[in-house]
């Protein structure tokens, strides 16, 4: 199977391990990721906070490039995902002459794509090292689900795609109520005090629910959840969901990905003999 891949800017830098694990996992599942040629930044919060045309046209250029290929467009970053979906919705309602988009494809978040029945089955068949005993809280954040009119999420208050994937790997998925609470990622540089408060609430809830680690599907959330924990000695590791997929599938790159984390996530894995 072949799909178009839009990594987004973070995956070239701060979220390199996410990009590396995405490519390795998809490779192992026989999914060919074809990176969109000459893709540009989606504009993120800065564009839609500043100017409507920027917010529409920056993602539109990528959609038009992908449109020519006719392959579904897979997006691993929730912020990019929402910007692309929002632009797509507008373009289909009111075409933009500069960026003629025919809508020959589906824009999908990588998490939702890998959680499709066919892919989950492939994953289940290939699990070599079940993550038995690893207690994880699946953290979805905001923009993969909200607003549902744009994202198409069927259960925006209680999504289950990551839960299903982690359960398929044999991990112990804990029930908790902060799956889609905001981590304040867009404010982390300009108002770190706000972001820190939001992150503390999320981590407190995850710990109370008995999680040893969080699992994330967004480079903004992941980086924010790590940096806002500061220097405390009781820090909670935050995995990318594809890193845990790679671990369970027995892929060789796992150690390299985990070494890139600001909060070393290897302790709980060592305790369970997983690495």
């Amino acid at each position, binding site marked *: 199977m072949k799909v178009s891949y839009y990594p987004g*800017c*973070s995956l*070239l*830098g*701060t*979220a*390199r391990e996410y990009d590396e694990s995405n490519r390795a996992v998809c490779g192992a599942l026989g999914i060919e990721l074809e990176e969109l*040629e*000459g*893709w*540009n*930044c989606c*504009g*993120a*919060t*800065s*564009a*839609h*906070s*500043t*100017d*409507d*045309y*920027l*917010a529409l*046209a*920056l993602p539109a*250029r990528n959609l038009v490039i992908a449109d020519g290929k006719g392959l579904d467009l897979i997006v691993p970053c929730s912020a990019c995902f*929402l910007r692309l979906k929002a632009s797509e919705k507008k373009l289909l309602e009111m075409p933009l002459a*500069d960026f003629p988009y025919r809508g020959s494809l589906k824009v999908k978040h990588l998490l939702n794509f890998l959680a499709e029945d066919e892919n989950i089955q492939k994953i289940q068949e290939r699990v070599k090292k079940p993550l038995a005993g690893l207690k994880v809280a699946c953290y979805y954040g*905001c*923009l993969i689900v*909200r*607003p*549902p009119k744009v994202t198409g999420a069927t259960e*925006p208050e209680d999504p289950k795609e990551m839960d299903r994937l982690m359960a398929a790997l044999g991990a112990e998925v804990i029930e908790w109520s902060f799956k889609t*609470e*905001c981590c*304040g*990622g*867009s*404010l982390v*540089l*300009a*108002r770190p*005090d*706000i972001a820190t*408060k*939001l992150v503390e*609430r999320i981590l407190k809830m995850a710990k109370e629910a008995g999680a040893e680690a969080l699992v994330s599907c967004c480079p903004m959330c992941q980086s924010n959840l790590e*940096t806002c924990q500061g220097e405390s000695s009781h820090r909670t590791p935050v995995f990318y969901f594809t890193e845990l997929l790679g671990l369970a599938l027995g892929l060789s790159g796992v150690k390299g990905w985990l*070494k*890139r*984390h*600001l909060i070393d996530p290897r302790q709980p894995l060592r305790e369970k003999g997983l690495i």
Partner: protein
Amino acid sequence: MSIAPQTSFLYHIEEKSGEKVSLCYQCNKCSSGCPVTFAMDFPPHVLLRMVQLGLKEKVLGSLTPWVCASCETCTTRCPNGIDIARVMDTLRQMARVAPAGAEDIPKFHEAFLNSIKARGRVYEVGMLLEYMFKTDVWAKIKSREIIKETKLGWEMFRRGKMRLFPHTIRGLEDIKKIFEHKGK
């Protein structure tokens, strides 16, 4: 104090945002679910009421749209289908100056967009440096905040998370054109 409602401001916001703010009946659902009300001067439902009443200066001088995290919870839950996060975008775009407590937020957006304009993608290292020099660096030195930030930068660098050289996309002229159309 009595307030004489001024509908022209309400209509202007409704036209610019495409959202029917007049439908808001103050159920408070947006503010109940909003994760950042603690940092706002007016919770979202109050701000919408102020828009309805035409309190232009107060609304455009409010912290609320700036510290809104764009988490879209309000938009998802509004029983009248008002895209409140979208209204916050419109208010941010209209307020030229950010009030005290939010000064750095538009500076961040500017550095971020400059990075896209220059290369088509955000080059994190360059964007962070530009942002830093737009903010009050001296205050950060005095409060020793700068040490914390430098340390974090170093931790990221040694883990290979900082790309040292920027990449410029093929087709940058498309991006230049998009930026020329800004505001249209």
